[in-house]
């Protein structure tokens, strides 16, 4: 067998291993929660949806929560992978470039100004989203505002990768200030909804919203995966990519567009969860390398695993209090961010 086939086989093996881990984590996460269910009950409930308590806990709470973690985790990781490539910047991700904050601002705006959702004090779900499409659309508009600024800055001659990230962080602050400003205009119930937003929480997604997230995300992912060879070409520099027949400007723009689309749809329903877009791709690069044929699916799977893990952790660290999952991902992501920053300085 040729050396290259072996080389590729190793990467495929990594992908299979990740898929296997994802499956295991899924099962484990279904067993974690404030109500104790044994493994048999969990297993049984997955296949028999009845009105019993165990079944409703699994179907109404845990399953939708875990599957949301999968969709959001892989979305954010892929958005990070694409942004790092098209912006040619290892620190780029939806969170560090302020795009998540833009989406959160858009979503908050739609709630306060356009009355697209409110908090209900029911036990099962904290947030009632009366018009999920509106919130998604506004989250997307907000994220695009962030993207436009980022792209204009990236076009500036001589802007260093570090400065670009700094600008992204500043944009994040600005959007956060905007979101805070909206809080002063909000009613109590809306206020609770907005506060939730900035702290990322997987617990308020219902099947309907999971459906919307999946419906938007899957086509975007297919588009991104179809562009994997273009992303590979971009890595060799603008001129080389062009000489290989790549329409670089179009690939960069559409890449940013779809990365912010999948970011916004997850931010719209679960709020800001930071650093998955950095952790996902960077933690798998050592195993699968820079080839986007493998890097994209591999970071996606890893992003999903990380988010399931973080979410489960957030439920058990100081149980019964549920920590916002964004806190857990920040604890993991910030050291990595600093490491890349320092390494890039050399």
């Amino acid at each position: 067998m040729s050396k290259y086939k072996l080389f590729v086989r190793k990467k495929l093996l990594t992908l299979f291993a990740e898929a296997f881990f994802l499956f295991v984590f899924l099962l484990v996460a279904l067993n974690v929660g404030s109500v104790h269910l044994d493994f048999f009950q969990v297993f049984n409930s997955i296949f028999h949806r009845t009105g019993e308590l165990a079944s409703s806990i699994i179907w109404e709470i845990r399953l939708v929560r875990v599957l949301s973690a999968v969709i959001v985790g892989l979305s954010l990781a892929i958005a990070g992978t694409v942004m790092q490539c098209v912006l040619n910047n290892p620190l780029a991700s939806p969170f560090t470039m302020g795009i998540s904050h833009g989406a959160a601002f858009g979503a908050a705006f739609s709630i306060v100004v356009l009355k697209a959702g409110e908090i209900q004090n029911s036990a099962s779900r904290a947030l009632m989203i009366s018009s999920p499409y509106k919130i998604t659309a506004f989250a997307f508009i907000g994220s695009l505002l962030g993207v436009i600024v980022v792209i204009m800055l990236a076009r500036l001659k001589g802007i260093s990768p570090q400065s670009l990230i700094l600008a992204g962080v500043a944009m994040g602050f600005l959007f956060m200030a905007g979101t805070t400003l909206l809080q002063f205009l909000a009613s109590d119930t809306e206020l609770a909804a907005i506060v939730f937003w900035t702290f990322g929480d997987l617990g308020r997604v219902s099947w309907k919203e999971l459906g919307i997230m999946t419906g938007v995300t899957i086509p975007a992912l297919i588009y991104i995966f179809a562009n994997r060879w273009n992303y590979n070409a971009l890595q060799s520099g603008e001129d080389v990519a062009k000489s290989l027949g790549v329409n670089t400007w179009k690939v960069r723009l559409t890449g940013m567009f779809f990365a912010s689309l999948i970011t916004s749809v997850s931010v719209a329903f679960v709020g800001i969860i930071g650093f998955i877009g950095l952790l996902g791709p960077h933690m798998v690069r050592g195993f699968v390398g820079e080839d986007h044929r493998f890097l994209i699916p591999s970071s996606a799977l890893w992003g999903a695993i990380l988010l399931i893990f973080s979410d489960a952790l957030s439920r058990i660290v100081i149980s019964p209090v549920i920590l916002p999952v964004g806190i857990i991902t920040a604890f993991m992501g910030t050291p990595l961010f600093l490491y890349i920053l320092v390494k890039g300085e050399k």
Partner: protein
Amino acid sequence: MSLLQVESLGFSYGAKEVLKGINLEVEEGEILSILGENGVGKTTLLKCINSILKPQKGRILLDGSDLSKLRGKEIARRIAYVPQFSERNSIRVFEAVLLGRKPYINWDVSSKDIEITEKVIKTMGLQEVGFRSLSQLSGGELQKVMLARALAQEPQILLLDEPTSNLDLRNQMEVMKLIAEISKARKITILVVMHDINLSVRFSHRFVLMKKGKIFARGGHEIITEENIQEVYGIKVIISYVAEIPVIIPLNG
């Protein structure tokens, strides 16, 4: 008809006019050197010929068809380009060369693409480093990888921008010899920007001397005269023969 025809080409970066009225014919299979001072527009000319930059004036004909009407992919199957400075990222040598198959890939690489890549890697003597990352290569190896990627495109025309400028003496000779061999064996036409006139004179069939964004002279070895070089580079030289090889020696003052 010439393989490549450049007709009264003009290019400006914004308000800065860089190329003016460039006319050029390139014949199949020849090695054509482009010589001139730094900043005269050599790189810009190569980029126009590869459609990386779109010229504002004139046109470029490839086998008689207007370059600006061809799709990027079609151009990439016929013209390959090795820039002066290459990105030193951490992709592997094999992956870097395989990328040369990009213009032929629809959904994914075929076994033919892999075969061609393996062959090119062998031709360039890169088997040893085939799975090393680009960041761990010597300057000479990196330049060969870039050449290999360009060859994997199976082009008719190869554009090389100062392929030897970052190499030591031995690697300079090695890379130039490889280029000459490839050109001969595969009938690939080569346009090469050279900053080392001596090296250029030894390996090229024809020359283009550029001055102030225009072509000052073009032709065979007969145009490499002391007067022309003095005009183009603004420095006095004498041409002497050492072991029957012409050597251009700059004089002081």
